[in-house]
């Protein structure tokens, strides 16, 4: 059977949802004839026409605002940001309006904002960022980032069906680098549930996105040293699956909190807050954060490498923590 890439998985998930539900439509810059900067919506305009595949002016705030307006009035927009970095241009609409509609006046905003994020592709300071935190921090928004093709398809479908605004972060570096065989039947991966990507007993690595693969690679190296790593893939960053996180830490008693996003104010802190409050008695060592450096994402390969977490860095810290 054919293998499906992470990118194709998102594309298929979207296609299926658009076929299933006439109220689902896509909108964004160059999503039509061009099929989107990364070709996620390739072929959509041929199938669904200009009514349901809308090429917009270069206006992120209008895209988000109009998406929210359409969602309020009964449609299910899936908006594409060309790069996650440019979500910043629609920040007020996302955080001050869309996020608050249900709370203020009970209005559903069943909207998905898709955004290619993350580094490792030599994109430099404007095409490599991981902008999840301001959205994780905004009550009313959900935030998702799949790490596998299976989850990518299942989560985009769940996001489209969800009645709250979902920020759907797609990791650019995974788009074409991973693939797997997907089920033929219609499936969703529910929002809000983490997955244990690898079971282990000695130490938990809690992470998401590209870093799941980095953690798994580190885990293999460490397995050869008889250090048995558990890898938790958060999948949904808001709401966090506290149960799975705490169960893992309670089992292993040690945790590394790993993300590509910059350290200070990153999700690692939130995880440390949850764990140090709710699993304090179980901890046999410090909570160790490994994250992108507190700098803009640099372009030049040696700098970007130094910026990014990688398996070596994880292995080294894990050895230290294991010995602790």
């Amino acid at each position, binding site marked *: 059977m054919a293998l499906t890439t992470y990118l194709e998985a998102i594309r298929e998930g979207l296609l299926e949802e658009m076929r299933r539900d006439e109220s689902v439509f896509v909108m964004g810059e160059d999503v039509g004839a061009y099929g989107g900067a990364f070709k996620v919506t390739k072929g959509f305009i041929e199938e669904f026409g200009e009514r349901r595949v809308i090429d917009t002016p270069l206006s992120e705030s209008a895209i988000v605002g109009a998406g929210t307006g359409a969602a309020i*009035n009964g*449609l299910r927009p899936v908006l594409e940001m060309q790069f996650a970095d440019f979500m910043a241009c629609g920040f007020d609409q996302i955080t001050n309006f869309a996020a608050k509609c*249900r709370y203020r006046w009970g209005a559903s905003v069943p909207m998905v904002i898709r955004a290619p994020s993350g580094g490792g592709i030599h994109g430099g300071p404007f095409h490599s960022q991981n902008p999840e935190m301001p959205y994780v921090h905004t009550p*009313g928004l959900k935030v998702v980032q799949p790490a596998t093709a299976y989850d990518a398809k299942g989560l985009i479908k769940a996001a489209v069906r969800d009645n709250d605004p979902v920020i759907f972060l797609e990791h650019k570096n995974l788009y074409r680098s991973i693939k797997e065989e997907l089920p033929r039947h219609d499936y969703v991966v529910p929002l809000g549930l983490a997955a244990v990507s690898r079971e282990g007993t000695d130490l938990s690595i809690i992470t998401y996105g590209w870093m799941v693969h980095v953690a798994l690679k580190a885990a293999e190296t460490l397995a050869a040293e008889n250090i048995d790593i558990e890898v938790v893939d958060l999948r949904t960053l808001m709401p966090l699956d506290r149960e799975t996180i705490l169960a893992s830490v309670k089992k292993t008693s040690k945790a590394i909190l790993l993300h590509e996003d910059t350290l200070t104010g990153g999700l690692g802190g939130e995880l440390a807050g949850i764990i140090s409050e709710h699993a304090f008695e179980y901890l046999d060592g410090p909570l160790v954060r490994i994250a992108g450096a507190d700098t803009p994402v640099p372009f030049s390969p040696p700098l970007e490498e130094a910026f990014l977490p990688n398996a070596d860095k994880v292995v080294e810290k894990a050895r230290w923590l294991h010995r602790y």
Partner: protein
Amino acid sequence: MSALATASISQEVTPDLANKLLYYMVMMRELEDRIELKLYRQGKILGGCYTGRGQEAIPTGSAILSRPDDYVCPSHRDMAAFLIRGMTPREILAQYLGRVSGPTGGRDGNMHMGCARRRILPIISSIGASIPVASGIALSMKYRDEPNIVFNYWGDGATSRGDWHEGINFATVQKLPIVYLCNNNLFAYSTPLDKQMAVENVADRAPAYNMPAEIVDGNDVLAVHAATARAVKHARNGDGPYLIECKTFRIGGHSAHDSADYVPDGMREEWSKKDPILRLQKEMVDREWASEQDFKQLRQGILDEISEAVDWALEQPYPDPATLEDNVYEVI
């Protein structure tokens, strides 16, 4: 009195229409006076307090032309639009008083209200943000091939926001069914027009989007009504957005705590003479449709309605603090 029943109104001014317009203008005036000059000063209303005193003609003359399935996106000066869409003085007072019976259940305050059922977009405090949202609502109407349109209200200050430009550009490129009502009251908070824009009229910006526009006397409710009728026809016909710039003046301060000392001497007095309510009343008297006595009666009826609503609202419960975290999400 149900305004929306008049939606298929003819464009001719009838005594019936004039009476309706007058009712909503006076209701807006008296309701806001009660809110600002009584309840706010008595300390019963907390936080910000905005009114549209002197600008009643704009929401009244326009929203009266909305049909039930149209969507209305008012600004913080457009109390009459809420009333015309069916929001009751009781509900509005409950909103101002932070009670659970207001349209936001106490979650938001003052003019920051809305109502999905009546198709009123709640005010988005970020000035200008409603314009892209109005585009999206209109897009959904076009998407479903409905004959509905959107009424989107905003002030002169809003025109400086990026969202204003992005929203109108999006709407004009997509030819969406929107009527824009600009209340150009010459100030944005304390900022006068010449510090806001290098053109004289907001309407001077319409050609930049290939959008028809007209300028009307915003204190003449009949002029606003007639212009809106033209705009509605244009928008409902599928010809895209249409801008009406209503020249007016904010008789009060920006909000209740603002004494508006920055307004040049005499300007308020000058504009007070152009009071839209007195103006319509004069017109009605001239046409022999009504007398001063009728106006007194109307006003008294409204004052009674408001007093009853205030009593009701003051008896409404505050929201239960235990509900604080409800409804942030549908499910989580």
